[in-house]
């Protein structure tokens, strides 16, 4: 039950009443389509796309504020290093026995 409650809070289900989005006007998606209303996304039309370029990453920066990291993580001196990862194999450190 606690998990269910947390999930409802975490993902803000449409069961909230009164809806904080009652007056929300659907945005116009870049393609020219009218974005569906909250809770009416056609799930089968969703896709997952790997972001590869700095420009693509920049386009999703606004979502960073929605990620609630532990305070200690944000204040860590290593935060920048851990967040800005270099994923070319040549840069990997010798580490555990696990292989990617």
């Amino acid at each position: 039950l606690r998990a269910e409650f947390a999930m409802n809070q975490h993902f803000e289900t449409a069961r909230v009443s009164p809806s904080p989005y009652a007056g929300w006007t659907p945005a116009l998606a870049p393609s020219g389509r009218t974005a569906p209303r909250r809770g009416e996304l056609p799930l089968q039309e969703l896709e997952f796309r790997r972001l590869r370029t700095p420009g693509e990453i920049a386009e999703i920066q606004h979502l960073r504020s929605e990620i609630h990291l532990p305070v200690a993580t944000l204040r860590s001196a290593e935060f920048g290093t851990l967040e800005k990862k270099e994923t070319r194999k040549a840069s990997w450190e010798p580490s555990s026995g696990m292989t990617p």
Partner: protein
Amino acid sequence: VGAFEWHDTVIGTMRFVPMGGGLSAMERLLNDRPQLLPLSPGSSWEFGRLVLDPEYRAGADLLQRCVFLAVSHLIENFGCVNAYASCNQILSRLYRRFAFSVIADDVRVSGEEKPYNLIHARAADVLLAAAVGDNERTAASRLLGT
């Protein structure tokens, strides 16, 4: 990092970090617990930073679809076998529904009152748990060769 998209509209994002190269924070945590490393042979990835745009958050179905898409991509393109993540206790209960189990519950995080959990699942189990309907189950079976 990958984006969940409806046509050209970004709905949310999720990050996956390959383990074994010292890139993931998870590795440091697991290196302190060698008995957990690795839980099963094959490639291991850290899952995290799952975020959905507040304008589109609409309950468990959307989350489930996003997990299915992301894990499908990871298995298909990178042969992911093991999935690891760190999260608070409440979210670790949430992720049970995607086949994750708690492998450590004593991770102290400075500034946080309660310890964090480390969770693990076989990627195949996550995919099957996230699959909804015949189409997704068929796609999962095809991807897993079952």
